């Protein structure tokens, strides 16, 4: 299994971004890119030379929400093959259903924890626990 080394996090909530970053860092993931505005993440994906392996995507955001972001990157054919996991504060089953219908690979009810992240990463066929310099 390929180790997970690069994650993009899109969430307008600064504190939830802090939580996501700390959880990702606890697994030693070296490259964590975060945006509070989905439009900036679209620009990033359009111009980056190295796509992330995983995108953690908040659902409810002003300006462009998680579903609009998914639609946009699907139209522009950005992030093809990148695993996308939605993060939601909602306990409303409708949001889960909408996520299931959209082009994403997983759904996590906030808060993100080490256990929830492990579960999602395993489903995507990636491995956690990357250690820099230890080799594949």
């Amino acid at each position, binding site marked *: 299994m390929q180790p997970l080394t690069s994650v993009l996090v899109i969430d307008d*909530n600064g*504190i939830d971004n*802090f*939580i996501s970053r*700390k959880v990702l860092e606890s697994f030693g993931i070296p490259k964590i890119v975060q945006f509070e505005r989905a439009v900036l993440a679209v620009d990033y994906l359009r111009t980056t030379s190295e796509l992330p392996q995983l995108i953690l995507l908040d659902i*409810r955001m002003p300006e462009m929400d998680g579903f609009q972001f998914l639609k946009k990157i699907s139209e522009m054919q950005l992030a093809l093959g990148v695993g996308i996991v939605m993060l939601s504060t909602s*306990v409303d089953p409708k949001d889960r259903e909408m996520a299931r219908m959209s082009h994403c690979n997983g759904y996590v*009810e*906030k*808060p993100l924890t080490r256990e929830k992240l492990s579960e999602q990463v395993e489903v995507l066929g990636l491995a956690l626990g990357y250690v820099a310099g230890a080799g594949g």
Partner: protein
Amino acid sequence: MKQIKILILDDNEIDAKMIQHELKKSGLDFMAKAVGTRQSYEEALHSFVPDIILSDYLLDSFDGSTAFQIKEEQCPHTPFIIISGIIGEENAVELIKAGVSDYSPKSKLVSLDQKIIRAIKEANAVMEKRRTDETIKAQNRQLLEIASLQSHQVRAPIASILGLANLFDYNDPSNPMNAEVLANIKKVVEQLDAVVHEIVKNTSELNKIG
């Protein structure tokens, strides 16, 4: 009760005058317009805007049932009374089932004023109930929106607090991250407090509307 606008549909002018004469005798405060054809009837529905319609049953050009159907399409809330000499009890019952407010034989117009007043009162009550129902439905929709929004607004900071609590390093209390976690918990709790204040404010505003 304010002056009642009565539209009389009868192609017999003498009968129309007789109805007005009876109503004047009863002391009813009204203003009447008499029409005898379908065209003038439809025009009067728009231009005269009656409070009530008194319609003959058999007319030369059309009939009371059709007049009632036209009324149902154009001003469904306006009460409609059939006045006829030859309709028969059974037909009258059928018409009332179809929605006609009342029936009065031409030979017995004595209590027509009472029937008019009752029909208008009933129509007003129906309108009033409809308005109340609509207000309640609108308020319900508003409450549902507030409830759904607020469940999200409350759930969001709670999820953050749970996430922060998971990050706290109990094994190493001196871990500098712990200070960051606590500072963030304080921030989120303040947000949650603001949300609760907002909920209380919205609820008390709804109380005022109610």
